[in-house]
């Protein structure tokens, strides 16, 4: 491969506001992600982490900076599907069954029979065989996010982008889905960028945790998670886990305070 799996170079996103200074959402983000790495980005609300993910995915153009995948610059005009996106909430198409939702990214790219075979494989991988013909409203929130994940994985993307995929789930389902994601990730070995505001989720899942500053978002610090894989729920009580969680929390707390300086909470 000609370069790291994903490289962001001085990525900046601003929104012009007319006569005044532009509204800067994030500034000079440089990040290198190696093949098969699981990287989480945490930060205070409104720090621009979701926008960053949308810029990486080409849904929004960057104001400046570059995005490289395997050394190849992404311009957004490309029709090739190199990224899979797992959305936050109700993004499944309600008029399509699970199978048809998963097929969306393969339609027109693969022969129908082959496409269906692949879609069924991924539905099975996320634990949903038997639910192929269910509509989204017939599935629980956790199951919907499984379909969401299968839909992103089915195109065999080079990079998997996940935007707070479990934010809308209840605490129990969320923990269960985190462990499921660990299992699925260990089977697919995808390179993942995972956005979350839950520090324990980031540590449990990731090889590396990136802490964002308050807006305009910058990379404040990054931590390599010193915990061996495969991981299970028990590592949450490992002293290294707890220490890292505390350190990250203190930093985010500072960012939240700095963001709210002078204004009441």
């Amino acid at each position, binding site marked *: 491969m000609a370069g790291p799996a994903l490289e962001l170079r001085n990525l900046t996103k601003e929104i012009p506001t007319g006569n005044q200074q532009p509204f800067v959402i994030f500034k000079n983000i440089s990040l290198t992600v190696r093949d098969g790495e699981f990287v989480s980005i945490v930060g205070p609300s409104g720090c621009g982490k979701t926008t960053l993910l949308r810029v990486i995915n080409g*849904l929004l153009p960057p104001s400046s900076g570059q995005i490289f995948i395997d050394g190849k610059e992404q311009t957004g005009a490309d029709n090739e599907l190199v990224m899979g*996106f797992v959305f936050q909430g109700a993004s499944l198409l309600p008029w399509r069954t699970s199978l048809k939702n998963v097929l*969306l990214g393969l339609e027109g790219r693969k022969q129908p029979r082959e496409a269906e075979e692949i879609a069924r494989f991924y539905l099975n991988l996320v634990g949903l065989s038997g639910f192929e013909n269910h509509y989204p409203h017939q599935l629980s929130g956790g199951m919907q996010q499984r379909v969401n994940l299968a839909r992103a994985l089915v195109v065999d993307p080079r990079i998997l982008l996940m935007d707070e995929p479990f934010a809308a789930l209840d605490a129990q389902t969320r923990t269960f889905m985190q462990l499921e994601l660990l299992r699925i990730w260990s089977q697919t070995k995808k390179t993942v960028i995972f956005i979350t505001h839950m520090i324990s989720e980031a540590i449990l899942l990731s090889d590396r945790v990136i802490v964002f500053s308050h807006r305009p978002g910058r990379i404040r610090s990054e931590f390599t998670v010193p915990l061996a894989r495969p991981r299970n729920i028990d590592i949450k009580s490992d002293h290294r886990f707890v220490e890292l969680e505390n350190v990250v929390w203190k930093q985010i707390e500072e960012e939240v305070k700095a963001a709210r300086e002078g204004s009441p909470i």
Partner: protein
Amino acid sequence: MKGTLKLISIFGGLVLWHILATRIINDTALLVSPLVVVVKGYEMLFVTAELYPHLYASSWIFLNGMLLATLVGVPLGFLMALSPVVRDYVNPWMTALYTTPRIAFAPVLLLWFGIDIASKIIIVFLGCVFPILINSFYGMRVVSREFVEVGRSFRLSRGALFLKILLPASVPFILAGLRLAVGRGLTGVAIAEWFGATEGLGYMIFFAGQTLNIPILFVGVAVFAILGILGFQILKIIEELATPWRKGFEVK
């Protein structure tokens, strides 16, 4: 339970009507009992068969007007939603035509297109087209940003984005527009047949009114009501077949 309440409501209404006609007003030149209407309707359907030409004429005008309105309204609504230029051109005309009472157009349409079927279909069309157009426009405009982003994140072409995301998301709105159009279309039929017609339910009612034939007048009104209910039910079935995924959204 729901069915029972409906039956009680219908039956109660008819009983009140009967009492009003036979005990309170008690003048067959003003109001007749529903029983008389039923008997007259039966007679017109199965004895003299005089209802059929009117029924066919009105249904034919109605169906043609609805079809034309759908063929024009849906694509135009989509175009307006997708192109700001089209929107700006069509909007002032749409607003003006929508708010002008259709009956005001009837005489001039008769003048232009004659008293045969064309002018009548156009009057029905004018009634039906706006709810269909507005709903198609609105349906496509309010497609959730998230769904569009899903399409874009999968790098769907513009055509695929329309066919796979925008169109299916708009279907429920279009069907709601069609349902609204049924009532307005039937009003259009009545208006169209009021002027210079020689057959049709509207003509039948108008003529019965002029000749003070109250039973026939009420048969005409009842047939209009039945046609409206029928249209609604047919569209409901179409809706269930076209959007099976919406069952879970309906509030019981």
